[in-house]
């Protein structure tokens, strides 16, 4: 049985070991850096450290955020590792673009000056402007060690809730925090939990939606790869709050590293008595299983996700009934996304008032974004709600590379839209982004410059929706195919104004009549680009010319037909 005392003992043991180990060298082995072969970097560093006999340890850690500088390595001096107050300690050194050949230099620099040619300025706005709640452990703990998560303060909130709070108080705390669903739609999390808690049913389920399908987003992947226990703790707390004893994590099979680390985390949590039967000696039980998705974006939709866990085709059902009342095997089911669960433990640990104090009036806390595209600094970032897009793109992201000008930022993936330069001063919150014709979405944020053709971007997202449509309802199945056809005609320079009018009509109709969110939001990328970049559409239609020089439009209709 796991108790508070044991958590403290574990913490003390880990800290003692860490102090004994001296300096710490952390190598990012999350997907991004790993694809740049950071595993080889870790191996050389380990070899070099052993050879030199220096008092240091080399660890693989999760994502440190600045992927564009990968492979990323950090060096925490022994004094910093041991320090109680991290703010006054000797700062952590950060290195980018580290190759196996740099290992000896880094090991040699432990008590010396930093390796200048690899050093990343940790005071730069990319780091300074971020606020980390969800990502607080990412890149600083070993994701495969439950002890390190505990030493970083983990599972305290769970134990306190189990022993000192009623389920209703947990729901109340989440409601009071103002947390809203991070999967994209922004439904109030507390309200959802309360509905499931209230629903009648002997068996209830909690599900973690980790089927991250937005083609420009990898937040969930990174969280699961870097700090899986944070998600587990959130799920266990949710299960306690709503009265569920069985749970599923629906995870993309395309994320093998996340699958593996989550598997380790579940095993470790069970071993420590934090998961399974009689958690921490209480009557609360929760059995968690991983279910692998198989490449279907629509399974991010709740009813489709449920169908998939039940082993069926991932086609959505009309709602009501909502999963909160009748979900998995017709039982009340709570479905939240990875980032939503990752926020739960900090809220309970530090209180709803602390959380609600961050962000804006209607959007509380922080949001994790996968910042990519034509920005100098790209990677995984976490910012307080309400920060402007301009601050994110130009301060954190460092703006677009020299020689190009900013054109648009895309948020919300295939359900979102492209926001132009003139609107960059809007705050990032659910409502402002929706007013601008986009959505918060799950956190993909792609910066585009003058080399991107907005019609082609709209067509790209429509192709995505067309191939991800489940095919059940007519407007989404046939409508996305028709809209894709019309957008293709425009990019080929063979479209007429009649085609454009038809496209607009279809956008409205498909959005209003589709069965689920996929079809309902599929027109958004078209509508937002039409709203802000209509001139690009007209250039393709009237002048048979692509202003960005991306599309090949030179042919005439007769030639295409002949």
């Amino acid at each position, binding site marked *: 049985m796991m108790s508070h005392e044991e958590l403290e003992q574990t913490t003390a043991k880990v800290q003692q070991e860490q102090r004994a180990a001296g300096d710490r060298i952390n190598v990012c082995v999350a997907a991004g850096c790993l*694809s740049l072969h950071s595993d080889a970097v870790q191996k050389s560093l380990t070899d070099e450290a052993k050879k030199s006999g220096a008092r240091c340890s080399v660890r693989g850690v999760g994502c440190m955020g600045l*992927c564009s500088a990968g492979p990323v390595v950090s060096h925490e001096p022994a004094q910093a590792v041991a320090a109680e107050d991290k703010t006054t300690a000797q700062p952590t050194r950060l290195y980018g673009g580290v190759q196996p050949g740099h290992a000896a230099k880094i090991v040699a620099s432990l008590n010396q000056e930093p390796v200048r040619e690899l050093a990343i300025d940790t005071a730069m706005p990319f780091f300074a402007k971020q606020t980390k709640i969800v990502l607080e452990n990412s890149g600083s703990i070993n994701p495969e060690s439950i002890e390190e998560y505990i030493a970083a303060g983990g599972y305290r909130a769970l134990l306190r809730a189990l022993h000192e709070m009623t389920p209703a108080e947990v729901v109340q705390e989440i409601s009071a925090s103002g947390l809203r669903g991070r999967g994209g739609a922004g439904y109030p999390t507390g309200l959802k939990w309360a509905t499931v808690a209230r629903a009648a049913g002997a068996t209830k389920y909690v599900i973690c939606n980790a089927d991250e399908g937005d083609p420009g987003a990898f937040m969930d992947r990174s969280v699961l790869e870097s700090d899986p226990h944070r998600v587990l703790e959130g799920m266990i707390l949710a299960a306690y709050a709503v009265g569920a004893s069985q749970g599923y994590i629906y995870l993309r099979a395309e994320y093998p590293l996340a699958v593996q680390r989550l598997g380790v985390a579940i095993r470790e949590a069970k071993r420590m008595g934090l998961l399974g039967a009689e958690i921490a000696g209480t009557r609360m039980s929760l059995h968690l299983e991983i279910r692998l998705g198989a*490449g279907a974006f629509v399974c991010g939709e709740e009813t489709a996700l449920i169908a998939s866990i039940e*082993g069926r085709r991932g086609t959505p059902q009309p709602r009501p009934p909502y999963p909160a009342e009748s979900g998995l095997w017709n039982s009340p089911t709570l479905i939240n996304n990875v980032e939503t669960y990752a926020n739960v433990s900090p809220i309970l640990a530090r209180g709803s008032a602390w959380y609600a104090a961050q962000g804006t009036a209607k959007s509380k806390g922080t949001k994790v974004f996968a910042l990519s595209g034509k920005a100098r600094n*790209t990677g995984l970032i976490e910012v307080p709600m309400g920060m402007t897009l301009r601050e994110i793109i130009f301060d954190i992201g460092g703006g677009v590379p020299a020689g190009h000008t900013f054109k648009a930022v895309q948020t919300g993936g295939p359900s979102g839209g492209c926001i132009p330069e003139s609107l960059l001063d809007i705050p990032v919150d659910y409502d402002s982004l929706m007013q601008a014709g986009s959505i918060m979405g799950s956190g993909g944020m*792609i910066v585009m410059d003058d080399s991107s053709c907005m019609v082609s971007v709209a067509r790209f997202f429509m192709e995505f929706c067309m191939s991800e449509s489940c095919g059940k309802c007519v407007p989404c199945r046939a409508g996305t195919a028709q809209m894709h056809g019309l957008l293709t005609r425009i990019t080929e320079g063979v479209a007429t104004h009649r085609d454009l009018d038809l496209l607009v009509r279809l956008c409205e109709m498909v959005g209003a009549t589709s069965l689920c969110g996929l079809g309902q939001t599929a027109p958004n990328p078209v509508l937002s680009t039409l709203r802000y970049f209509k001139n690009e559409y007209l250039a393709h239609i009237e002048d048979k010319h692509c202003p960005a020089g991306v599309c090949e439009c030179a042919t005439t209709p007769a030639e295409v037909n002949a």
Partner: protein
Amino acid sequence: MVNMARPSLPSEDKRWRIVQGTMRKHGYSRNALIETLHTVQQSFGFLDKDAIRFVASSLRVPPSQAYGVATFYHLFQLRPPGKHTCQVCLGTACFINGAERLMKHAEKSLGIQAGETTPDGEVSLLAVRCVGSCSFAPVMIFDEKTHSYAKSETLDEQLQAWRQP
């Protein structure tokens, strides 16, 4: 009562035991269909009709339903994969960095469309949706190895390497 015995294994191949193991772990429940198909694909590399028929009858799922599921999810392959796989990421960041052109180049060089395998069974070409390496877009994955900032030449070199005896 009709004969409710489970079907016998399709062949002596030991991999069927692994498939059976997955079904047993889930108590031969109908909802284990997707999990079991994952195991089949991991074991055999793809799903053929015999495998789907075996899994369907073991789990008492109607064959049409099993086939409907197997063809719904894009990760399931119904044809044997090539000796090598070439995946082109078509995530958004890769797209705006020219992944579409890369894909066209790959299709032209290999003489096949995305989702197909060359007639000699050497290379399968696949389109994937965001592998989370957006900072190094565009990205191609050759077998297990990820290539950042991929160019047409990256593909040409890899194809050359695969063709070397």
